[in-house]
Structures are given as C-alpha cells and as structure tokens.
C-alpha cells in the first residue's frame, strides 16, 4: 500500500504545474498575453499552459499528458494585429507577446459504431460511415487548423476515394484534439474518419511483419522471462552500462554489421 501511494505521488508530481516558486526578480523577459480578453504579464519562457497557470488558472480539464501526445489542451489564438486564427497545443507552445488565447477543451462529435472484424475492406466504407465527407469543398481550413501540421484535407480526400493506406499514413500523428472538426465548414469529423482509416488499414492493408509474429510467439512461450528478470534487477549504474551496450549494438546493426 505504501508503495502504491508513492507511485501516485510521483504521478501527481509529474503532472504538476512547474510555475510554482517563480520569483519575479529572476524573470528576465515578460510577455503580455490576453486570456479570454483579460491582460496578463507572464514570464516569456513559459508554455501557454504554464503561463495560464502562472496567471492563476487551474486546469481540471484541457490538460492531460503535458507532453504533446494526448491532445487535450487545444488552444486557439490570434496575435495582436493579425487576421489569422491559429491553433496550438498549450503544453507545447511558448507564449508570445500579444497572444489572444482561449482553450477549447472538447469537440462535440458523432462517432459511428462499426465492427473492425466484420467491416469489408472496401473503398466505399468511408462514405458509408461518414457520408458527410462528400461535402468537402477542399477549402483546406482543417489543414490550417491542425496543430500537428498534418495534411488533413488530403486525407479526407483520400478517404473520399477509399484509399485506406494514404489516410493511415497522412493521419498517423493525429492526436485527436478536434480542431479540424471545429473549424470545418462542411462539419466533417476528420479525426474520426482517419481513426477508422488507420484501424481498417492496420487490420487489413498493413503488410504482416513476420519478425514481430515470431517475437510475440517467443514472448508467449516465456523465452524472454529470464532476460527481463535480469534487466529489472539492475541498479542505476548497471542500467546505464546495459543501455550503452544496447545502443552500441543497435548502431552496429543499423550500419549493417552483425547483430
């Protein structure tokens, strides 16, 4: 029980704001930002998320991994004097002077139910579950809205012509933040379309990796049990040594040497 509490504390700590204990005397540069219209001076080194916390906001939503992966901290902003509406992940973007900011914690979206095992791997499946993709006028607003810089419009177009592979490849880095869907004038929910594409391609189109199959089988048989046990038993110094050795082997392997 004590051990478990320790882990929970660790997690809580990892997800804590890092703005605690900043002394204004130590801050060299300040940025003037506007959070929902109200002006704040914040240290210019902070991310948008940290800046908002510095300004006194406490996130109980719109904040997940703090590492640019979960897609929860969608932010929309305009720079003072510019016409462009921009998007960002609050945890990954540094504040800049003149940002007008707002968080968009959630995007309401319908997600159809489909069976990955039963659904035929056919081009027209996209239109069956997402008929609204036919409303795309190629305005490219979704692409402009994507904080991951994906070619969103291109994958919607690929979906229209039933190209699962292209959908999967173009959308691979999607974090499902929902910005595309909120900006789309055709009311398409792009990230659900691409998820369907990736799942279907992964199951039906992606070439089978024989090496992986072999390793999974060996793992199930317990062939690596001993190695894992050894690895978990290493102390810090031994871990570092083992890591260095592994990296050296990998480099040699990638160069074309022996395993």
């Amino acid at each position, binding site marked *: 029980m004590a051990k478990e509490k320790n882990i929970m504390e660790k997690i809580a700590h990892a997800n804590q704001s890092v703005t605690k204990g900043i002394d204004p005397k130590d801050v060299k540069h300040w940025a003037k930002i506007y959070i929902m219209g109200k002006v704040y001076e914040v240290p210019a080194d902070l991310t948008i998320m940290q800046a908002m916390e510095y300004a006194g906001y406490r996130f109980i939503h719109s904040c997940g991994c703090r590492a640019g992966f979960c897609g929860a901290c969608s932010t929309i902003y305009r720079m003072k004097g510019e016409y462009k509406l921009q998007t960002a992940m609050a945890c990954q973007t540094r504040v800049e002077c003149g940002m007008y900011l707002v968080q968009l914690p959630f995007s309401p979206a319908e997600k159809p139910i489909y069976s990955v095992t039963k659904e035929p791997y056919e081009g027209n499946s996209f239109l069956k579950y997402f008929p609204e993709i036919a409303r795309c006028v*190629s305005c*490219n607003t979704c692409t402009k809205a994507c904080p991951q810089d994906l070619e969103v419009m291109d994958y919607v177009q690929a979906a229209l012509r039933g190209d699962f592979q292209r959908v999967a490849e173009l959308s691979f880095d999607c974090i499902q933040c929902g910005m595309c869907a909120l900006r789309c004038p055709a009311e398409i929910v792009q990230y659900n379309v691409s998820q369907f594409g990736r799942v279907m391609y992964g199951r039906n189109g992606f070439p089978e990796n024989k090496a992986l199959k072999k390793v999974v089988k060996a793992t199930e048989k317990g062939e690596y049990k001993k190695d894992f046990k050894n690895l978990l038993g290493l102390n810090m110094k031994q871990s570092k040594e083992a890591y260095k050795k592994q990296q050296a082997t990998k480099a040699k392997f990638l160069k074309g040497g022996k395993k």
Partner: protein
Amino acid sequence: MKKIPYYPGCTLKTTGKNFEDSAIATAKVLGLKLLEIDRWNCCGTVTSLTQDDLIHHIASVRNFIRVQEMNERGEVDDYRLLTLCSMCYNTLKSVSNVMQERPDDLDKINNFMDREEDYKGGVTVVHLLELIREMGFDEIKSKVKKSLGKLKVSPYYGCTLLRPKEVALDDPEVPTIMEDLLNAIGVDVIDSPKKSMCCGSYQTVRNPKTVVRLGYEIIESARKRGAEALVTSCPLCAFNLDDRQKEIKLEHPDFERMPVFYFTQLTALAFGLKKDVNNFDLNFTDPRPLLKKKKI
C-alpha cells in the same frame, strides 16, 4: 511518349477502376502518358451555377494549381488537364471557364487560399475523346488489331459531355465524336435518339424510380434499333444505366440485361490489349457472354 497531366477523380479509383485502367492502356497505345497530378482532390462536383458561390469552385482551382506546379517543374509536355469521367470533365471545365472570364473572382479565391501559390489561370480541361479526335480517327484505325465488326453498340453521351454548350466537347444537339471513334475501331454503331437524354444523375440517391424509368427508356430505345450494348464515358451514367437494371427487371419482368461499356474498354479490345485492363468484373452486367457470343 507525350506526357499530359491527368485527373482521375474519386470514382475512377474505386468502382470505375475498369474505366481508368482501360483508358491508361488505350492512351499508351496512342503515345500518351497520363501523369496523375499530385495530391489531387475531388473536382467539386456538381458545379455550382450560382455566380457568387465561390467556395464551390475552390476544389477545381486547387487541382489547376497542381497542374501549374507540374508545368513549372517541367514534368509535362501539355498544359491541359486530361479527364476521363464526364462529371469531372464538366465540373473542371466549367470552373476553368469561369476563372478565365471573371478575374476578380479568381483574385478572391487566390486570397482565400493563402497557403497555395496563386493560380495564374490558363489551365484548360480536355477529355480523352477530344484528344483522340485531335490525333485523327485514321490514327486510331491504324492501331486496330482485332475486329469488333459484329458488335452492335449504341453510344450514350448523357448530359455532362454536351451541356451547357460552353463546356460541350461536340455539337450539343448532334454529337458525333463517339460514333466517329467507334467507327474507327470497327464497331457496328447503332444510333439512338435518346443518346443525350439525362439518365437521372444524382436522382439515383433520393429518387431511384425516376432513374429506373429513364434507364428503361434509354436502353429499350437503343435495343429497338438493334443495339446489344451501350457505351459511355461517365461512371454515374454507367451506374444508373447498368446497376439499376436490377430494379428495371423488377418492374419489367421481360426486360433483358444489356451490358454498358466504357469507350476505353472497346478501344482496349480493338487494340488487342491484355484482358485484365478491362476489369470486366466491375461492369455491373457482365459483357463477357456477349463478347464470347460474338467471338471477340
């Protein structure tokens, strides 16, 4: 081989693959390499006829920018955009005309698409049938290896190749381009008065009964004059006239199914090309029994 920018369109990549493959193979025989444009998007079908509805022209203009880029990179020998699908042809050509005639609207679209290079205008849209006419039907005749003389086929133009007259690839009232091609490859051409009557188009979604009625009229009119098959260049017409024959059969039990070819499937046959380019599996009514009967 002359390289020309090629716009396939969504249907030709799915249910109309038989059209695409046979067209690419046909073009190759004629010394044309169809260079599929990069990152093409839906043409924007159906063209908006509302003058100020510019958002619906963006899709086509974006495709023209891709052609412009290919041309600037020196990848193509022809600055026209080739299409096969009649619907795409109609939409792209209409927008190309509008952008040529209304530079203010083009400015507006260019301003909106601020991440793209400006479309400078000048990309014209051309259908494969037009290119074939340009080469001359005698040129086609010289490539024929297999006689299709016993096959009685009626051309079906539908709407989008002929209307409105600004985009028509031939005389909208008395078109002959398909007849000329079919004559050149030695098919027995059957004329039908309903060859440019509408097949019902997108009514097929909401009002399939209309499509069934029109399809029956069009097919029977051709059959009465001796046709054994129809030929088209439109995947939507092909769907309406061919797949809807299931429903026609339900309403008219004595109705006999009639195959519908893409014109490129017939040229591929006449040029003696590999059978797999025709993908007859994708034709809703299998034309192979008819071809077998005719010993083709």
